[in-house]
């Protein structure tokens, strides 16, 4: 059954269709949630909230492509993960001059293994990691990031710049 078929079933509120949709995207959703939260229990909660919200809202969307649906769902999971973080603590937006001298070289990322990248992402200060994941991986705009995190767009931009440079330094080591 294609994702489009499942979308149609979910739009009709079909419970079996919803279960199949959940089975198809649950693992990926957990990975997205873990990228933000790094706590398995909270990540599970984000997945639950994300799917619940997605099934509630899916009727409003009538022109989903398979990829469009996936990125929409992952954005919801990311959003719910951020809400959970914000409910529990204040995010500190670190800014350091240490990273400013580095110039961006995309080859560094290309050469690094997936494990090394995941490990380096885990070492980034939280604000850097959140903004970099939201912007570069999930495709949020700076305005969306600013709204979701409750920060200025300029802070989102500066966190992104710092994050890229810091990640590059970590990957070069």
């Amino acid at each position, binding site marked *: 059954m294609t994702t489009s078929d499942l979308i149609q079933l979910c739009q009709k509120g079909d*419970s079996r269709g*919803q*279960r199949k949709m*959940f*089975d198809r995207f*649950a*693992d*990926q959703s*957990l*990975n*997205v949630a*873990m*990228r933000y939260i790094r706590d398995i229990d909270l990540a*599970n909660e984000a*997945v*639950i*909230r994300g*799917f*619940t*919200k997605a*099934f*509630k809202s899916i009727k409003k969307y009538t022109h989903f492509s398979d990829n469009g649906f996936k990125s929409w769902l992952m954005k919801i999971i990311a959003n719910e993960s951020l809400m959970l973080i914000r409910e529990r603590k204040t995010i500190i937006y670190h800014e350091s001059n240490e990273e400013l001298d580095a110039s*961006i*070289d*995309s080859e560094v*990322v*290309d050469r*690094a293994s*997936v*494990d090394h*990248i*995941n490990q380096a*992402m885990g070492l980034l200060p939280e604000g850097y990691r959140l903004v*970099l*994941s939201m*912007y*570069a*991986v999930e495709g949020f705009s700076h305005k969306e990031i600013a709204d979701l995190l409750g920060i200025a767009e300029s802070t989102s931009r500066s966190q992104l710049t710092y994050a*890229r440079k810091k*990640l*590059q330094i970590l990957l070069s080591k």
Partner: protein
Amino acid sequence: MEKNFDNHLKEKIHTSDCSKIYTKKLKDEIWESVDGKNTNYNTNFFIRIAASILLIGGISIFLFRFYSEGEAIQITYSTEIGIDFQKEDLITGDEGTTFIKSRCKQELSICKTPEFRSLLHELEVTEQEIEELDTMINNYGYGPELVKSKIDLENFKSEITQKMILMILS
């Protein structure tokens, strides 16, 4: 250069997006929670329907009593003042407030009285409280306390709406 950096990062991270996987047991548990919350949304729908039925029932009983007591009341219906009920309003149970708003748009003198305005204020506050409660229910699911509060608020809203409709019709 920064775009390339981001694209490479995105590609690499997406290839690792299935590294963490649920066990069958945990997946079933997580699904049960998702399914449970979905069922709650259906419950929410039925609470709204129940509140609508209560409201309509209340108005019908009042009108029936009014006629039975032999009061001379004449209600004239015309297409000019007909209420344009939207399908969505009927589903959400907001037909009472739609009726009040459409009548007050016609600048009826009753809508300007202090008593009516006070009720209107109460209605707006109650609607806001219901909205906040809905947000809580969406975030935290249905607990017995939330359900009770929801029913109380919907009943209170019905009472206020009923009073206001009666003032308009009198």
